[in-house]
Structures are given as structure tokens and as C-alpha cells.
């Protein structure tokens, strides 16, 4: 009988040095997954950026339509008017008050008035009739004055006060007019019945005066503290609206742009064939054009994306282009070029002139070009995703830009100037369909108005993963000076 042991001990001792070699297939699977991951990793990151860019564009378009809709709802004049609508309620009350006053005046002035009641009825009726007109007149007046004050709010306050002062000056004259009006009204009422007030109004030219009077009276009422406050409030509100609008206005910006771009490479090397590594290369100036949309995250930072069409190209100099009449030339074709099969001319060979000197013993049927150049050009659709940091935001703005671009190859060609004019040699087969670049640059802007500014942005774009089999130290980059007008929403 063996001794008893705690169950934990039994297991602990048993598994102390437990090791088991797994099946080799496990490593095979891990390796396969690692490779898959490596492959996937290069592209998805950039697809993700592309996705972000696309999302930004979608958001942008939604944003634009949204803000456009909002703009019509929140246009400043309408807001003021709706405010006045609320105010007009108060003002109407004030109006009735102020109109009550003239009655008292009338009473005071025309003590001898025999038909007080008639006069009261008359004026009260004309008051009712004119209310609509008063309101329109009244509404027009302050709304236009407040609206006109947008450019200068402080002046606005002054001008309103001045108006009020003028109105107060008018009050003396008004009271005199009221006296005469009421007399005439009384006369008319004694002549005609109260039921014919409308007719009376039309017939009686004084009814116009009555309207004018009541308007003036309202203005007098406006000069009351209460009304002044409402105007100040309105101004303040309009200020607030202005502020809100300022914020909203600068969020989105769309900038069509065009840029001359200079393609170049750091270090010696060739994207075409190793034999051209040491050949001199001359850059070409091409064009890039597109649209960039940006969104301001805050005062300083903007995220931007868009679409650009970029054409790039460069020439490799000191090249010998041969056209052999025999079907196969002794020299193999360029390593990174897929020859043009439909080429009408027979086999074309391209050689570095140095190589040509070495091999000159070989006999060629025809030489068509010596010391010419071959020109490689390619175009991309570029989707940048960049961040703009504002350093200076005045009439003249200054900012720094950094980010990435994804490039989608749309065209590539290799041509040479030999024979008569430009001849296509083939298509480069080592340009990746999707490549990218690291971007940085400076932005200068000049504001024409709140909405429109001119941008000049010298950008440096270091290309990554553009070519597959480059020889030598071929590190392509390009510089573009992007110029365009930005329109803010």
C-alpha cells in the first residue's frame, strides 16, 4: 500500500517537467499566417487611409448640404424678424399705451370737445385698422436698422439712439398733429356714422396722418427703456448669431488646386534598368490638379483630403536607342519594362551609351538614335490625408502641413525621341498599382474675404513603395507648388 498524497502534489509533481513537442504542422500554419499578415499589412493600412479619406469626402458632402440648409433657416435677417415678432407683442402693448396717452392729450388740448366718445371710437377704430400697417411699418423699420448694423454693431447702437432722439424731438410736433387730427376726426365722425369708419378712412385724407401718427407714437414708445432693452438684446443676439456663424463658416473649406510638380530622385539609381543607374537624369515639370476639402477641428487644426490627378515623369539621358531589323536583337530588353507588342517598328533596344561603347563590336543593323533620352512618365490618382496646423491666421495666413497620400496608378509609359518624333517603347511593369507618399509642406494664404482665400502651398512628397524593382539608390520624390482658391462654408 503506497502512502497517500495530496491530490495537488500528485499533479504538481507529474507536470513539473512536462513538455511536449507539437506537430510540425503547427509551425507551418503559424508561418503561413505570418506571411499572410505581412502581405496584408502593407495594403490594408493604406486602404484604411483611403477609407478615411472617402469617409471624409462623404461627411463633407453631407456637411455642405446640411450647412446649406441651415444657412437658409438661420439667415440673420430672418432670425431678427422672428425676434421682432416676439417683440412686436410687447410693442403692441406699448403702442396701446402710447395711444392711450394721446387721448389724454386730446382731452387736455381739446377740453371743449363735445363728442369725446366719438373721437375715442374713431381713433380706436383707426388704430385697429392701422395696426396691420403699423406692424409692417414697425417691423420693417427695426429689422432693417438692425440688419443694416451688421457690419458695425457699435455704430448701430448709436444710430438707434440717434433715431430715438430724433423721435423724441418729433414728439412736440406730434402732439400738435394729434390735436389737429383728433379735431378733424371728430368732425368726420360727426359728419358720418361710426359704422362707416373704413369709408371714412379712405375718404378722409387725415387717416394717413393717423397712420403716420401712430407710427411715430410707436417710435416714441420705442424710446422707452423697455424697448431700448429689446433693441440692445436684439443687437446682442445678432452678435451671438454672428459669432455662431463665424464658427460655422470656417469649418469647411473646399479648394480646387493646380500645381506644377517636379519629380526627382534622391541618390543614383534607375527605375528602368540597372544599366541606367549612373546615367544622368533630368526632371520634367508636370502638372497636378484636383480638389482638396478640409474640415477645421479647432482654430489651429484642419484635417483635409481630396482627389488629385498627378502626372509625373523624368528622362534618362545618354541612352542609345537601337532598332534592329533582325527579329531578335542580341540584347535583352529592359528589366522593368514590358515591351510594346503592337509597335510597328521591329525590335527596339535601349542601351546606356556606356554599355553601348563596350558592346560596340557587336554589329547592329540600324542605329536610330545615339545619345538620346528615354522618358518615363506615369500618372496617378492621389488621395491625400493631411493635417494642417495654423501658425498665423490673419489677412495673410501661414501654416504647416503634414500627412500621407495614397496613389493609384492610372497610366505609365516609356517613350523615346528617336526616328521621327516620339516613339513608345513600352510600359513600365514595376510601378505598383497602389503606392503612397509622406507629405509635408508649408501653406501661405491670403484672405480676399471671409469666404474666399488664395492658397499657395509648396509641398514635398516622398514616395514610398512606388517602384518594385529599382536598381541602385532610387528614391523618388516630387515637389509641387499647389495653388488654388479656397472657398469656406
Amino acid at each position, binding site marked *: *500500500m*503506497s*502512502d*497517500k*498524497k*495530496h*491530490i*495537488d502534489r*500528485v*499533479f*504538481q509533481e*507529474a*507536470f513539473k517537467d*512536462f*513538455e*511536449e*513537442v*507539437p*506537430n510540425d*504542422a*503547427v*509551425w507551418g*500554419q*503559424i*508561418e503561413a*499566417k*505570418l*506571411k499572410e499578415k*505581412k502581405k496584408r499589412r502593407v495594403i490594408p493600412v493604406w486602404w484604411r487611409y483611403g477609407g478615411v479619406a472617402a469617409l471624409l469626402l462623404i461627411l463633407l458632402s453631407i456637411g455642405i448640404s446640411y450647412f446649406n440648409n441651415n444657412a437658409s433657416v438661420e439667415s440673420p435677417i430672418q432670425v431678427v424678424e422672428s425676434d421682432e415678432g416676439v417683440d412686436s407683442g410687447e410693442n403692441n402693448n406699448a403702442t396701446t399705451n402710447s395711444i392711450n396717452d394721446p387721448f389724454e392729450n386730446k382731452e387736455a388740448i381739446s377740453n371743449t370737445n363735445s363728442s369725446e366718445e366719438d373721437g375715442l371710437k374713431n381713433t380706436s377704430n383707426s388704430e385697429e385698422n392701422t395696426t396691420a400697417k403699423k406692424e409692417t411699418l414697425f417691423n420693417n423699420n427695426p429689422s432693417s436698422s438692425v440688419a443694416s448694423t451688421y457690419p458695425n454693431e457699435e455704430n448701430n447702437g448709436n444710430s438707434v439712439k440717434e433715431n430715438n432722439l430724433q423721435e423724441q424731438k418729433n414728439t412736440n410736433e406730434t402732439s400738435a398733429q394729434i390735436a389737429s387730427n383728433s379735431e378733424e376726426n371728430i368732425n368726420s365722425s360727426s359728419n358720418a356714422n361710426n359704422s362707416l369708419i373704413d369709408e371714412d378712412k379712405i375718404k378722409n385724407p387725415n387717416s394717413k396722418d393717423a397712420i403716420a401718427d401712430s407710427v411715430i407714437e410707436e417710435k416714441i414708445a420705442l424710446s422707452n427703456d423697455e424697448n431700448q432693452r429689446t433693441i440692445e438684446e436684439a443687437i446682442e443676439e445678432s452678435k451671438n448669431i454672428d459669432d455662431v456663424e463665424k464658427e460655422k463658416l470656417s469649418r469647411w473649406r473646399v479648394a480646387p488646386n493646380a500645381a506644377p510638380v517636379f519629380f526627382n530622385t534622391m541618390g543614383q539609381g534607375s527605375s528602368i534598368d540597372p544599366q541606367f543607374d549612373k546615367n544622368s537624369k533630368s526632371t520634367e515639370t508636370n502638372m497636378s490638379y484636383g480638389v482638396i476639402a478640409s474640415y477645421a477641428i479647432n482654430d489651429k487644426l484642419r484635417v483635409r483630403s481630396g482627389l488629385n490627378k498627378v502626372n509625373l515623369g523624368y528622362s534618362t539621358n545618354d541612352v542609345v536607342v537601337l532598332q534592329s531589323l533582325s527579329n531578335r536583337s542580341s540584347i535583352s530588353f529592359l528589366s522593368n519594362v514590358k515591351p510594346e507588342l503592337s509597335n510597328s517598328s521591329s525590335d527596339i533596344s535601349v542601351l546606356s551609351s556606356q554599355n553601348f561603347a563596350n558592346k560596340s563590336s557587336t554589329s547592329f543593323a540600324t542605329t536610330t538614335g545615339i545619345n538620346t533620352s528615354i522618358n518615363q512618365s506615369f500618372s496617378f490618382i492621389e488621395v491625400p490625408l493631411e493635417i494642417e496646423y495654423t501658425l498665423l491666421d490673419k489677412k495673410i495666413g501661414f501654416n504647416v502641413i503634414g500627412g500621407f497620400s495614397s496613389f493609384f496608378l492610372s497610366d505609365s509609359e516609356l517613350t523615346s525621341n528617336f526616328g521621327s518624333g516620339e516613339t513608345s517603347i513600352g510600359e513600365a511593369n514595376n510601378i505598383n498599382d497602389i503606392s503612397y507618399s509622406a507629405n509635408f509642406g508649408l501653406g501661405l494664404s491670403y484672405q480676399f474675404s471671409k469666404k474666399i482665400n488664395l492658397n499657395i502651398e509648396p509641398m514635398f512628397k516622398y514616395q514610398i513603395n512606388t517602384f518594385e524593382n529599382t536598381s541602385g539608390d532610387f528614391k523618388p520624390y516630387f515637389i509641387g507648388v499647389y495653388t488654388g482658391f479656397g472657398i469656406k462654408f
Partner: protein
Amino acid sequence: MLNLSLNQLIENCKINDTKAQGELYKLYASKLFSICLQYSRNYAEAEDNLQDAFLTIFDKIKQYKGKGSFEGWIKRVTVNTALQRYRGEKVFDIVNDPISEEVDIEIENDNISLKYLLQIIQDLPDRYRLVFNLYVLDGYSHKDISEMLNITVGTSKSNLARARQILKKTIENYREQQHLQSL
């Protein structure tokens, strides 16, 4: 490759050097596979867990800053891989009767084959297996286990007691059968 120091190997793995990753696998596969076998339900799932564990290790190796032993780190990653797989699984045979926490569960110390012991661990319900492994074989405290499995300390304790009871019973039954067969 053998002359490469472990640190160099780790550094190479950080830059996704496939060769270094292969070396690292060779170095630790059997150790980690034993863990996987203990924590998994069966051999096939242990292989799956080993694969996942290594993929996680290669993915997260940049986060290993040389603090603590590397072996400890990869073992933790492996255990966590298994926990992730089984943690969410429900314990169906929830036993409500209170378990007397007999700490002194003793069995006869015959030579029981490792293979058999592994088999009966794998046959335990998921939660019991995890708790038993964590507590008995890897030395985690009930508090650690409660955090790792998102259960209470009490549950961890009762799961462990339950696991021990099941294991004891299984072993005793096994013995009995063997005894009968030998007769």
C-alpha cells in the same frame, strides 16, 4: 543561429524577421505546448491555442520591454490565449450544494501515468479546468484567478474544490477498474 543571444533573437522578432520567429518557436514550442495541453479540452484545441499564442507573441513582442523573464511573459500570453477561448464558456453543471472545502483531499500515490492525468484534466468542465490549472499548476492565487476569469474569489475556491473532487473520484474509479482488470 544558436549563437544568437535570446535578446538578439527577440530584437529580430520585433522587426518581423521570419527566421528569428522560427528560432523562437523552436526554442519555446514544447514548453508552451504543454501549457496549451493542460488548459485545452483536447489535443487539437491545444494545437489551435498554441498557434494563436505564437501569433499573439509575434504580434505583441514589441510590447515586451525586457522587464521580467521572457519565458514568464510568453507563458502568460499562452495562458491568456487559452483563457480567452474558454473564459466565456458557461459552466453548465453548476453545483449549488455547498462544497465542504476539504483541503486534504488525498489519493494514493501510485504511479499514475502523466498521459492519464492530462486526460482527466482535459475532461474537466472548462471553468474547473482553468481554475485547477491556474491554482495548482501555475501557482496563481484565488484573487488573481477571480480577476483573470472575472468571477468572485468564492467561486474560484468552490470551483477548485469541485475540480479536486471530480479528479479524485475519477482517479479512484480508474483504480478500481484497473484493480478489477488485474484480478
